[in-house]
């Protein structure tokens, strides 16, 4: 199980839930789990969010591995100047 923390952006999909656990070993699995559990969230995360796995930010990286017991933060994608 990995622990997912979702910011306010995602609450429209989670019904306000900020933390929950899902089963996932890659970012892609995580996204499909999110979609299954909260319809619309997986798609939203895929398009709009970056995923911090134990502190390291991954953007557009479906095959980044996720270890068991990892902590996942969903954060808005980051650009820059």
């Amino acid at each position, binding site marked *: 199980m990995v622990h997912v923390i979702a910011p*306010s952006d995602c609450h429209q999909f989670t019904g306000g839930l900020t933390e929950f656990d899902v089963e996932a070993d890659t970012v892609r699995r995580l996204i499909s789990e999110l979609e299954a559990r909260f319809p619309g969230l997986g798609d939203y995360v895929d398009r709009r969010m970056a995923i911090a796995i134990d*502190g390291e*930010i991954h953007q557009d990286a479906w095959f980044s591995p996720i270890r068991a017991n990892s902590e996942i*933060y969903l*954060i808005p994608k980051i*650009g*820059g*100047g």
Partner: protein
Amino acid sequence: MSDVLDGPGVQPDLKVVGTRPIRPDGADKVTGRAAFGADFNMPGQLVGKILRSPHAHAKIVSIDTRKARALPGVKAVVTGADFPNLASEMHEGGEAASNLRDLAMNVIARDKALYDGHAVAAVAATSSAIADEALRLITVTYEVLPHVIDVEAAMSPDAPVLHAHLFTEGLEVRPTSASNVARRNQITRGDLAEGFAAADVIVEGRYTTQAVHQGYIEPHACVAAWVEDGQCDVWSSSQGQFMVRTYCAKILGLEISDIRVTPAEIGGGFGGKTTVYLEPLALALSRQSGHPVKMVMTREEVFRATGPTSGAVILVKLGAKVDGTMTAAEVELKYQAGAFPGSPVGAGSMTALACYDIPNFLITGWDVVTNSPKVAAYRAPGAPIAAFGVESAVDDLARKLGMDPLALRERNGVRNGVKAAYGPTFQNIGYLETLAAIKDCPQYSLPLGPNQGRGVAAGFWFNVGGESTAAVHVNEDGSVVVVTGNPDIGGSRAAMAMMAAETLGVPMQRVRPRIADTASIGFSMLTGGSRTTFATGMAVVQAAEKVVADLKRRAALLWEVPADKVEWRNGAAVCLDPAKADPKPMTLEILAGQSARTGGPISAQVSLNAQGAGPGFGVHVCDVEIDPETGHVTVLRYTAAQDVGKAIHPSYVEGQVQGGVAQGVGWALNEEYIFDSDGRMENAGFLDYRVPVASDLPMIDTILVEVANPRHPFGAKGVGEVPIVPPLAAVANAIRSAIGVRMADLPLSPPKIRAVMDARAS
């Protein structure tokens, strides 16, 4: 003064990385040979010009172009009607996401002009004078609408609404009527009420900033040529040729492979050249006229229709124990987005408290559309504005607590293992080291004279990685070409060549870096977000490593030993098999000369999507002196310390830091968009929009703190964004220390300061 402080994880035995060679494109740039956007011409090219709205908000009732078309020498006239209507679609280029429909409508207005300077028509003619005359002959009938530019006025329920389809996102309940508030975002932790209840000391402040422009000295420029078979070529100055290609294809409905974009040298961008303004118009004019079309903005157009970053209102409340431990923070950020949604308030919210470990906080951000140019990214987009408020409030808190401002920051500063306010847990960060570097720097303990003050402030930026491609080719004589797809804005060619040279074990002068057009190298995201040295650098190193592996394999074949009996040292293959009598090292030259007979050209390309960019922190100290007669602020001394991971070319890293500081000082003291009561920009030129000049600034001392990023081959972290984050507050805090009054409305121009000093004196 410039110091480099080696920290944990930095490789000790580097030969090229960390040195200061002359940049490979240097001679071109000091002799005037380098070709920037406006320096390129094509035979038979026409001059393209744009008609812009004189109104901040107006319905476009009709556009009559007949007279302009009839003028001899006019070859094309386009309006919004000549472009396809796009559906709302977010494009996630990895940079600030942009809605393609909005992007297209920003390039040329359709039914409404949304700001003074919004393009409404464009012409192409055989001369500049004829093009100007043609613009005069176009009749646009406007129905002028009430406008709104101030961010809080735009949020009020009775404000004129810019977009009838805009409903605030991010609220618990979707609103039933359209408004100018595009989005609310919130980040929260702990219990705010409890946190403030536990505080012994509370400070509060309201801070305001005005829109400021990136202020690159080179105006936007391009040449576009549409050929009859539908293939097109674009030469333009931008932060990313692939970005230009994608946006042109989308806006004009073209196939990506039909567009080739060649990057010109770019005369500064700072985020402002991460989007398109001219290129789609030039292509449309070229299609209609059958000629290449060149378009170059005037400085006035640059100010009125490109950039800027948001003006904002920032509310901050902080609570702390008497020992300085911060217990609670509440931050509210209201950012102008300009004519279309997409202010950098999201990043502002995420960075606002990123330097602090506070158990209870709430950060709320509002993205608000206004009748001003659509904001573009500007160096650490959103972060300097938030830091201005937070770092000013932290300064007030230190004063109220009677604590040294660096000590207060250290007590509450984030370190490895601490959860960032925006979520993830920090690793390999160098914030405390950076604070210590400023505490130890000579400036921090120099005595101050009368009317002088000292301010410190901290800043943070995430830095990003992303998609990059690099190719490394070894020529027959052993010299090397490195090809990437990232425009070089600040010396990145040098960094690319140095990293390739280090990996190959050859002198940097044997490696020539080139920047290719979109048809000649694989996709790369644009140069921005401080990603190039990190991500493209990673691609360069991996491509060079592939080349080394190939060289070792060929040497093993020649020596007839297994591949693992060959090592690559100092630019040559070395045989480890003692059974082979005296095999001399096989140099790159030797192997390159035999490449045809050992398997063909030696060359490798790597495309990747780099993850794991290391976040950066900066701490600045600024000393000022105020002239009590005029209120004029002189910056006496400035030292900026920053965790840079590993400086590949320290001079250019220092240069990034110094340049960011200068822009931040300008933002703090002078720069602002000024609009008249009709919403027209009043100061659209460098005379009235005053960016810092050489006599406004002292030397800017830098301290490069190196806490390596383990995800980069040499430990590099992004550098360019962080240094613009602290200066706004560092300057404001220095002025606070000099005059004893908190000034919270940027820019801190002489009349404002004098008014405060006069009020205090009487």
